[in-house]
Structure formats: C-alpha cells, structure tokens
C-alpha cells in the first residue's frame, strides 16, 4: 500500500466533492434537518410530551430495561426515549449519506472515461478503492458529527431535566459517535464501492445500497418498541463486529474488482 497514492486519491475525491455544491448540499442537509427538527419540536412543545401513544406495557418494558429509569416521570422518560430514537438515526445517517458518493465511485469514473487512464498509472486496486472509500466516509462522518453536536447543544436547552440531558449525553453515545459512526460509514461505503464496481448503472447501485439501512432501521424499531435498549456493550461489541466486517469487505472489494470487465464490457 503506497500511502502517497492513497492520499492522492483521497484528496482528489474530496476536491471533487467540494466543487460539487449540490452533492455537498445533499450530504449535509439531511443530518442538519435531523438535528434541528427534534430540538425545534421539543422547544415548541414546551416541556409537555403530550399523548405518548404508549400503552402501559410499553412503558413498563422501558422501565424494566434500565433501573435508572425508575425515577423518571412519564414525561421525562418519553423525552429521553424520543431523544434516543433520534440518536439511533445518527447511526443510520452514516450508512445512508455516503452511499450516493460510494455508488458513483467506480461507475462515475467509467462514465467519464477517466478510469482507463487512472488504471494505467501505477496505482493498485486496493489503493484506489480504499482511497475512494475514505473520501466518501469523511464528509458523511463530518456531517453526522456536526449534526450530533448541534443536537446535543440544542438538547441541553430543551431537555426537561438534568437527568434527561445526562441520558442524552450518555458516554456510550459519544463512543458510538466517535467509533461506530466512521465504522458504519465505512461499511456502507465498502459495500457501495463494491456494488459500484459490479454493476454498470448508478441507479441500480444506489437502489442496492439503499437496502443497507434495513438492519439499522430494524434496530431503531426494536428500541422504539422497547424490545432492546442500546447500551455500552451493544456499541462496543457492535463496533468490533463492524470493524471486522469492514476489513473483510474492503478485502473482498479488491477481489471482486474486475478491471478487465469494467474496461471492456461496460458501455
């Protein structure tokens, strides 16, 4: 692995993303909306969570998931649950945001006829794919972190109590944001790059990549329904598993990259 070539690929990809204002807009807008939306919502509700639409069983399930919740009022519990639903979205974002960039990574080069001169340089497949993956991860992670920071600062203002804010600022979520977000983003991107090098239509690549969010959505729904509570163990174990999957996927991506097929058969 030649780090100079890897860095060169990353810089060029980031430069192109930076010059594409529409793409930047689509990368940063959804996370920012998801940061401002709940804060605005809570501010408008003025501390009353209203009809929670939760039955007694659901509330009981949440109480049973953590002893700390025993002292929470239903309003506090509801606000924390809603906060946590939005926090789950911050795990979904790094899966969704970079998919467009990743899905376009190889097909885009082929469409622009720039892949052949690029592959004629001494660059290796691993350097090219890893460079493209990192370049797709960086803006997605930055956008997620920015939105998370706004969400936390806004959360401080609208939280019903210090213990709700403490629940929001739970260190396990910080770990999740710092470790799991980039790893999830890399997972999404690795699959996106792999798809991009196997199908010759950007739309198909994006559609296949879109299915990636299903496990994260299932996770979110499970928590909403009170079946699971994401905790430190979930995140640490999840991070380790995702890191292993990432390494495996990146290796697999280099193995399934068929430069000959891409150059000669894709039209």
């Amino acid at each position, binding site marked *: 692995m030649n780090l100079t070539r890897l860095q060169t690929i990353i810089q060029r990809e980031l430069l192109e993303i930076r010059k594409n204002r529409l793409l930047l807009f689509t990368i940063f807008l959804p996370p920012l909306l998801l940061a401002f939306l709940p804060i605005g919502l809570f501010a408008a509700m003025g501390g009353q969570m209203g009809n929670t639409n939760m039955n007694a069983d659901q509330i009981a399930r949440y109480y049973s998931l953590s002893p700390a919740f025993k002292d929470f009022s239903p309003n506090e519990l509801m606000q924390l649950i809603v906060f946590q639903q939005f926090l789950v979205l911050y795990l979904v974002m790094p899966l969704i945001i970079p998919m467009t960039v990743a899905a376009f990574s190889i097909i885009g080069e082929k469409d*622009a006829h720039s892949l*052949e001169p690029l592959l004629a340089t001494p*660059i290796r497949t691993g350097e090219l794919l890893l460079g493209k993956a990192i370049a797709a991860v960086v803006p997605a992670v930055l956008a997620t972190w920015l939105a998370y920071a706004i969400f936390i600062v806004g959360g401080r203002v609208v939280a019903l109590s210090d213990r709700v804010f403490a629940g929001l600022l739970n260190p396990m979520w910080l770990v999740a944001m710092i470790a799991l977000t980039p790893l999830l983003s890399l997972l999404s991107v690795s699959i996106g790059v792999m798809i991009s090098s196997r199908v010759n239509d950007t739309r198909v690549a994006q559609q296949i990549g879109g299915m990636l969010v299903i496990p994260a959505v299932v996770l979110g729904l499970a928590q909403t329904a009170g079946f699971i509570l994401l905790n430190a163990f979930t995140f640490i174990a999840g991070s380790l598993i995702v890191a292993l999957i990432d390494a495996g996927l990146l290796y697999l991506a280099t193995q399934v990259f068929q430069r000959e097929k891409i150059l000669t058969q894709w039209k």
Partner: protein
Amino acid sequence: MIETHGLTKHFNGNHAVEDLDLQVKQGEIFAFLGPNGAGKTTTVRMLACLIAPTRGEARVAGYTVGGESDAIRAHIGILTESPGLYEKLSARQNLDFFARLYGLSNSARDDAVKKHLEMLGLWERRDEAVGGFSKGMKQKLAIARALLHDPKVVFLDEPTSALDPEAAKIVRDFIAELKSEGHTIFLCTHNLDEADRLADRIGVMKQRLIQVDTPENLRRKLYGRRVVVRTRAVNDALIAALKTLAFVKSVEREDSRVSIALDDPDAMTPAVVRALVQAGAEIQSVGEEKHSLEEVYLNLVGNHQT
C-alpha cells in the same frame, strides 16, 4: 522497446487479437492501423497491462507484461480514445493528480505540469475547470497527462481525432519532437495521412497483423515502383522504344501518360528519358508514381480475410 510473441486476446469466444508478433524499436514511431474492431485498442490495453492476454508474451520498456505490470505502468504514458479528464477540476489539478500518482516529487511535479501546459498552449487556462474546455483543449490536456512522467513508451490512441487542423499540427509536431527526444511512440490512428507523415513503420491489423513495414516499403510491396512520364502525345513508337530497354518491367499507356515499372527509378529514369527523347517524345513531366497510404491500406485490409 515493445516486443510481442503470439499475443492473443479472446473475449467470450470473440477473437479480438490473434497471434500478434511485433517488435518496436526504441525511438521509433510505430503506427498501428486497422478498421474499427480490428484489435488495436485491445492490443494497447494488453501492452499497458490494463487487461491480461489470453496467451502469448509481451515485453514493454524491458519489463514483462503480467509479471512486471507495476514497472510497465510507471514507464508508459497512455492517451486513451476519450480524454477522460476530471471535468470539475482545473487543468493544473488534473495534471497534478496524475503526476502524484506517477510519484513525481513536488518540484518535479510543478515543473512538469508547467512545461507541458505551456508546450501545448494551455498555461493561460491552467486554473479553469476542464469542463469548460473545447474538445481540442481536452485532447491536448490528455496528451500532456500521458507525458508528464517522461515515459519511455507512449501509447497514443487517435491523438488528433478531435482537433482542428491547427491544433492537429501542433500535436503532430509535438509527437515528432517526442521521437527526437528518444521516446518510443505507438500510434493508433485512422488518419492515414498522419501515419504516413509521422510513422517510421506501419502495422496493419485486422485481428491478425497483416503487414508491418515502412510506408514506402508497403507501397513498393503492393504496387512496385513506377515512373510516370507525361508527353504531348503518346504513340506506338514511344512504347516500342521503352520496351527495348531491358530493365523496363512493364509499360502502361493512358492518354498522354506512360507508366513504367522499374526496380530502381533513381538509377534508371535518365536512360528512360533518353530513350523517349530519341524516339521523338516531347516530355512535359517525369516523376515517380506515388500511391497514397489509403490505397495501400484499403488494398491490404480489403484483401485480408479473417
């Protein structure tokens, strides 16, 4: 500098290139001609280590295709059919990106980028996004990209296809200059006039290599050498006088024009002229008949069955 033995490429049963034996010397401009689908681009891709041969061997710049692909890529430059530039980046950013991939140091990179942009008349537009360039400017930039790292072998696929006559001349002069600097140039083109003007040798390809030689030798092989004499009038006496000359291989008569096949026109033309004058001919012009490369090419490709 380029050497292939039995180089073959099949795609799903389609024989793109078959048993290609070729040698291109250092500092030579080798023009590779052939109809669309003849296997020219496939050959270049194999030599540039972009695709693997089905069988056969090849060496480029002293390295073996397949075994030493990284070394080959570092020593070749390639201009592909389409310029393939990053349109949102400027001309300078495009070249800088490739110069980095080729491992040029910071100072060497700046120098190479400036030198090539200036040489191809793009320096003033260096910071503009390539997407706004004309086809010709893009083509010139793609040529600059192929040459940034001073490659030993340069593969040029249709280098002047998108250029206006003035820009095409600049590129042709540039190619000639590259040769004078010792670069080996492998030129794929449909522009036969360009091949005729630039190439030391020409290879005509149609899945298999049909012929390889200098443009002049290809003409001679197909048409021999003939001297054409124009006179005020051609009569039987003039034809008879020519036929008395032992070295005259054949004579063809057409209106006021006589075409005479000779082995060595340089040495034999004076004797031909003397014989015609003695027979009463009023000669208006004498010159060697020259067939265009187009005639040669069409003859070779048309007569070749794959």
